[in-house]
């Protein structure tokens, strides 16, 4: 029983990270209807900004950790907005496939540039937050897991407030519902899309740092698998749906942790895709998504 709780806790903290990344995918998909393959590499850049900033602040302090987190989020928000401006905006009216390939190009560019600048060898991520272990009966809770869950919940609440309580959030929802009508209502779509990329990339950076705290080995290709799985999480919850992305992330993280704790652990990378295939075949709109009928 205690082992079950332990695994559940590990799964939830992994799931919270997936959820943070999935939110970026789902928001971008909401406004632009395409898979931003470069998102997983923004996540990687976030971890690397954290790595270099972590050397500037004293290790193991709460304010230092939060400063690193904030710096990475701002840095990645700028990166995301730059990518959107330079690579995606010129293709706004092109077929989705072209944008998809451009996104793949940006993703490869970030990965290979990362390999040139940071080197391909994995590095140890510094312990920027204070580390302590609490034990609750037989269940051991590490402070990093607490930080992951607290930070994720705070960010998700903030995101929910931005999307539903602010003017720019209303504009985001308007663009995702109907871009043309949004323009007619006086929404500046370019600003909204740029803001969405900034927001999503900031969340990816937070995810990157939290991931690096729990799995403290970072390299330029670290984003590929978590990125793909987070996208699966976004689809699982219903793409374009913010609570859905959070739910999908939590489910996926938990399932994956349980699989890697069982005798099928070598299949843990396949389980996410098996879930993806099952969900797309039986409920293509995702758990919380609305099913729409194609009209002629």
């Amino acid at each position, binding site marked *: 029983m205690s082992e079950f709780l332990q695994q559940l806790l590990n799964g939830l903290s992994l799931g919270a990270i997936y959820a943070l990344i999935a939110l970026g995918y789902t928001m971008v998909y909401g406004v632009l209807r*395409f*898979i931003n393959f470069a998102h997983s590499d923004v996540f990687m850049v976030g971890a690397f900004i954290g790595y270099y900033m972590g050397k500037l602040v004293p290790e193991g302090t709460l304010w230092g950790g939060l400063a690193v987190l904030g710096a990475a989020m701002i840095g990645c928000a700028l990166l995301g907005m730059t990518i959107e401006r330079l*690579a995606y905006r*010129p*293709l706004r*009216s*092109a*077929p*989705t*496939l*072209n944008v*998809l*390939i*451009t996104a*793949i*190009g*940006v993703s*490869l*560019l970030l*990965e*290979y*540039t990362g*390999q*040139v600048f940071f080197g391909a060898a994995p590095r140890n991520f510094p312990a920027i937050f204070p580390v302590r272990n609490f034990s609750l009966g037989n269940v051991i809770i590490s402070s990093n897991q607490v930080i992951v869950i607290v930070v994720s919940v705070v960010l998700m609440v903030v995101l929910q407030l931005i999307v539903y309580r602010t003017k720019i959030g209303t504009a985001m929802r308007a663009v995702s519902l109907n871009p043309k009508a949004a323009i007619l209502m006086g929404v500046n779509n370019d600003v909204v899309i740029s803001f969405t990329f900034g927001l999503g990339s900031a969340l990816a950076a937070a995810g990157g740092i939290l991931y690096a705290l729990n799995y403290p080995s970072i390299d330029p290709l670290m984003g590929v698998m978590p990125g*793909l799985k987070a*996208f*699966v999480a976004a*689809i699982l919850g219903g793409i374009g749906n913010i609570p859905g992305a959070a739910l999908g992330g939590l489910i996926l993280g938990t399932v994956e942790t349980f699989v890697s704790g069982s005798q099928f652990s*070598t*299949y843990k*990378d*396949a389980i996410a*895709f*098996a879930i*993806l*295939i099952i969900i*797309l*075949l039986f409920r*293509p709109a995702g758990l919380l998504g609305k099913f729409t009928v*194609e009209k*002629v």
Partner: protein
Amino acid sequence: MPPKPHLFLLGALLVAFGVQHYSDSFNPYYLDVLTGIGINIILAVSLNLVNGYTGQFSLGHAGFMSVGAYLSAAVTMYCAPRWFGEDGGTALQEGGLFLMALIAGGLSAAFAGLLVGVPSLRLKGDYLALVTLGFGEIIRVTFQNVESLGGALGLNGIPPYTTIFWVLAFVAVTIFVVTCIVKSTYGRGFLATRDDEIASEAVGLNTTRYKIVAFVIGAFFAGIAGGLYGHFKLTITPTGFDFTKSIEIVVMVILGGMGNTLGVILAAILLTLLPEVLRPIAEYRMVLYSFLLIVLMLARPQGLFNFKLGKIKA
């Protein structure tokens, strides 16, 4: 495409034979590059049938390639020592075995294509791309876990059966088959499915069937290419067929201009040569490669070698 495809096939096979005959006098490095180009052309042209002509965006081509590579390697590694003994068979015997292994690899990849295609081709666009990507990754993880096929270490010691003749011959066969299918009366169904699925269904075409046929044929040739690749590199690992490989093939198809066989062939040649040409600048070459990819996409969204302007549909 030349007006008489059969003559083209015959001519290409003769050329392949000729190149093989004089292969000793070529620089081996150029032969290796040519082999790589040939394998990529087979992959790109076969994927073009799915992505370009039928309009189904598949990101799982490397998965089918790996099925073909593993199965054909297993066939030759199992049969060659038992049939030919220590000192190997004659060229004809080995060629026959290799052809058999390649076809077995192609058929198993086609079967995998059928298994993947039947459930997933109900989906469209991005979703189909993701499901095929998912299946590709599942195939890879499965191979990683099959101990008799080397597990994560992969298969080593595959006999070096791939010669320039086999590569060029299969390039010719792939181009021949894909072109003939698309130009035939039956093949119009692929184009109709791509251009307007709902209208095609309304006039009574079974679009699902067309999609699956395209998928299975595409997978068959991907399997052949995998077999050629395995017997060329002599060692295969599951990670060599991950989704980066699939994306590489998709990029060739898109750069060549979807549904334009000649353009796709040129793109396959260009994209295989590009990393080779950039080799002197070593670590920056992949940076430059990805950068060029973005620039090409921004500058020529209709494909690098697609000169029919205004035919791209959103």
